[in-house]
């Protein structure tokens, strides 16, 4: 797959709440093909202490309007300064990067997203839905501020919500959700979120012999397989999350 370095124009910035915002970006030419689970490396301009690019998942692509969406959580300087871009500003991306979630074979699929990990799952649901699948989607967060654009997820599948404080959906961790009482409903589970959550889901899938793919986050310097900083230990040795991931089959991980 060809990778690009492009300046994309900000079409819209949606401030969801103090912690989250969505950037809608467009390119002067037709956007490249992108697959669910892939990410971009975004350059943060005018940030005194942000030296490297920041990896951000593809939240959604609207090919009809030639728009790429990113969902970003403010956690430090880079994601904060980036939140000040305005329509007509340009941001520089290296993209699309990484591998992607595998295609489902049937409708017996579950997408589980926790916190900012829900970002890649919207495009995954969207993409799968374009191929005629209707995934079950479970998104969880600390509280309702972390449940971003549920109406978007609802377009593409059957949405379930849970929050740790019960402020939206059912109360508790995602793995406490009733979906996890019915392993027989699923052939494939796709997960992205905090590591403990992914590990818990992975454990459950292993126990019930369900195919499970997780999207990992880690510290990246280049995003294109050149620096070897982003390694994940696997049964096949140290692999780069940026090129051989971010999506891994849990059976390849040493979890």
């Amino acid at each position, binding site marked *: 797959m060809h990778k*690009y*370095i492009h300046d994309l124009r900000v079409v819209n910035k949606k401030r969801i709440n103090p912690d989250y915002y969505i950037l809608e970006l467009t390119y002067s030419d037709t956007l490249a093909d992108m697959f669910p689970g892939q990410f971009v490396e975004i*350059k943060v301009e005018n940030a005194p202490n942000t030296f490297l690019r920041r990896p951000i998942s593809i939240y959604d692509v609207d090919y009809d309007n030639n728009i790429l969406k990113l969902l970003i959580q403010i956690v430090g300087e880079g994601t904060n300064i980036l939140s000040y871009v305005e329509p007509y500003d340009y941001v520089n991306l290296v993209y699309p990067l990484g591998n992607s979630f595998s295609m489902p074979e049937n409708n017996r699929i579950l997408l589980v997203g926790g916190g900012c990990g829900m970002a890649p799952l919207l495009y995954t649901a969207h993409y799968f839905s374009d191929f005629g699948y209707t995934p079950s989607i479970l998104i969880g967060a600390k509280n309702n501020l972390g449940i971003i654009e549920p109406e978007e997820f609802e377009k593409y599948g059957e949405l379930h919500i849970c929050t740790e404080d019960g402020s939206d959906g059912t109360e508790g961790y995602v793995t406490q959700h009733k979906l996890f009482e019915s392993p027989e409903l699923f052939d494939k589970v796709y997960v992205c979120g905090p590591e403990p959550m992914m590990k818990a889901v992975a454990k459950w899938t292993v126990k019930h012999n369900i195919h499970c793919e997780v999207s990992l986050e*880690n*510290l990246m*310097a280049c995003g*294109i397989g*050149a*620096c*070897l900083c982003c390694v994940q230990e696997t049964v096949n040795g140290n692999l780069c999350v940026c090129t051989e991931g971010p999506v891994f089959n849990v059976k390849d991980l040493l979890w």
Partner: protein
Amino acid sequence: MVNLEIDFNGLILRNPVLTASGTFGYGEEFKDFVNLNALGGFIVKGTTLNPRQGNPYPRMAETPKGMLNAVGLQNKGIDEFCNSIYPRIKVYNKNIIVNVSGSNIDEYVECAARINELETIPAIELNISCPNVKQGGMAFGTSCPSAKQVVKEVRKVYKKHLMVKLSPNVTDIVAIAQAVEEEGADSVSLINTLLGMAIDINTQKPKLSTITGGLSGPAIKPVALRMVWQVSKAVKIPICGLGGIMNAGDAIEFMLAGASCVQIGTANFINPSVTTEIINGIYEYCSSKGISDINDIIGKI
């Protein structure tokens, strides 16, 4: 018209811009961003006799205008390089240089001997300055006798251009440069990373699995430039300068300080097509200043 071609002690570079080992993969990672053949050359990943898994994660920390890495020479070993990587990449550029490392002198020698057989590899860069491995690496580059010895032994088996990459973590880099020159190095490259460290005050733990790691990026540029200048006044072999080069202006600083060519490292991570921009920028600098030959600015200070 500006001439950008450099005769780097026999190695003919179409322009003075190469890439630094460990920051440019095997070149192919960048082929969507750079016309690889337009580079002066590129230096591939640190290669060792045996495959290495490198250090545990985390291997990277961002620092003020720089980064620390503790990759630890992860690579598939010389066999894999010769048998499957080399045949794949050799078409990309006529100056593909292999960065060679080892835990002991025999490993360096055997690795160099194997590369000597590879027809289209015109040079090796002997890495006696890697701070991220327990044995060998930087240990060889921080004392004159050990630097001399490894260069002497490698020189016996390696017949093409032998570039030696120096460590900045020394009191007197000039002495090391002179020592390797005496043993027949064809050129020196400097600098490798400075040994550094970073701590996460929240977890109260080091940010790298290895505690210390190698500092690169603009933060180290003033130190690199000083060392290039010092060494250039003291040796006759040419110098390849690197350390924090982000743009054409930085590259020109190194050439004014005495480098005949430069390597671009960490900058590739931030802008994967930076090398092309630097080549163009050097051209523009020269033409705007009426400099018809880039060789005219080398060591002007």
